[in-house]
C-alpha cells in the first residue's frame, strides 16, 4: 500500500466516526499475511483461525493506543507473534510438554493436518522448520516465506539486524543438515 494511503488509513483509524470502516480495511489487508505467519507457527488451520480472530480482536481493543509511530503491519505482526507463542506455551503446559519436546508435539500436528497440498518434500520442510528454536523459526518463516526485510523483522522481534541475519543463516544450515541426515 502506498505511503499516502497508509497515512490516510491511520488517520481514519483515529476518527471515531470512521474507525470501524477503516479497521475493516485493515482486516482485509492483513488477513492473509497474518494467517500464514500464525499457521506456520502453530501448524493447525483451526488453531490458526482462532488465533487470527484473537489478533484482530486485540488490535481492535487497543486501536486507540496505536499512535502511528510504528508501522501498522509491525504492530499487527507483534500481536500475532505474541498470540502464537502464548498459544504454543499454553499447549505445552496443557500436554505437560517441555520446550525440547515441542518439536514432537508440532510434528504430530503437521502429520494430523488435513489442509495440505500433499507434497512430501514440503511436509518434510515443515518438520525441519519446527525442529528450530522458536525465535529462529520465526526469523526463518518471515525471511524465507514472506521475504521480509531484516529491518522490519528487527522492529517486530526487537532484535538487531545482525543477529537476525546470523539467525537466518544458522536456520538454513540446520535445515540443510536435516535433509542431509534423512537422505
Amino acid at each position, binding site marked *: 500500500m502506498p505511503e499516502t494511503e497508509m497515512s490516510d488509513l491511520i488517520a481514519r483509524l483515529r476518527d471515531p466516526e470512521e474507525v470501524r470502516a477503516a479497521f*475493516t480495511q485493515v482486516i482485509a489487508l492483513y488477513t492473509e499475511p497474518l494467517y500464514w505467519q500464525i499457521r506456520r507457527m502453530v501448524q493447525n*488451520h483451526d488453531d490458526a483461525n482462532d488465533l487470527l*480472530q484473537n489478533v484482530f480482536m486485540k488490535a481492535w481493543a487497543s486501536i486507540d493506543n496505536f499512535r502511528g509511530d510504528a508501522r501498522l503491519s509491525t504492530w499487527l505482526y507483534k500481536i500475532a507473534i505474541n498470540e502464537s507463542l502464548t498459544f504454543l506455551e499454553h499447549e505445552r503446559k496443557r500436554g505437560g510438554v517441555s520446550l525440547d519436546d515441542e518439536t514432537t508435539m508440532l510434528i504430530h500436528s503437521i502429520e494430523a493436518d488435513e*489442509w495440505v*497440498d500433499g507434497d512430501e518434500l*514440503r511436509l518434510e*520442510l515443515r518438520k525441519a522448520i519446527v525442529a528450530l528454536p522458536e525465535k529462529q523459526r520465526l526469523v526463518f518463516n518471515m525471511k524465507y516465506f514472506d521475504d521480509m526485510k531484516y529491518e522490519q523483522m528487527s522492529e517486530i522481534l526487537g532484535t538487531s539486524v545482525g543477529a537476525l541475519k546470523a539467525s537466518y543463516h544458522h536456520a538454513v544450515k540446520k535445515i*540443510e543438515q536435516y535433509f542431509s541426515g534423512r537422505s
Partner: protein
Amino acid sequence: MKQDLNPLQQVGRMDGMTVPDGYFRGFAERMASELPDKQPAVVEMPRSLWQKTRPYIYLAAMFAGIWCMLQMFAMMGGTGVSGAITPDNNPVLADAIENDSFMDDYYYMAVDEYDLYDDLYAAGMDWNKFMYEK
C-alpha cells in the same frame, strides 16, 4: 546430488499448507461484524481548586470533630480542660452538695435492698419458689 543438498531450492517458497475453500473470501466482513462497539472515550475534566483541596478539608473537619467529641466526653466524665471538676472549683457543684433536698432527691438511694426484701416477704412471696424454680 547437488539438488538433494538444496531442498530449499527444490521446495521453493511454498510451505505445502492450504486453507478450506473460500476461507479468506469474506473473512474481513465476518470479522468486522463480530467486533464489539467502541465505548466513547471518557473525557477527563480538569479538576477545580475545590476538588483538589476537598480531601484535606474533610480530613481537617474529621479531626476537629474527633477533638470536640473528646472534649465533650471529658466534660461529661467530670474532667475539664483545667483538670477534675470539684466543689472547690465549681460553684454549681458546691451549691448542689450543700443543698440537702438535692442530696436526698438525687444522691442518696431512697430505697435500699432490704426494703425490697421486706416488701416482698410481706406480700407472701415463697423464697424457695423464687430461688429454685427454673
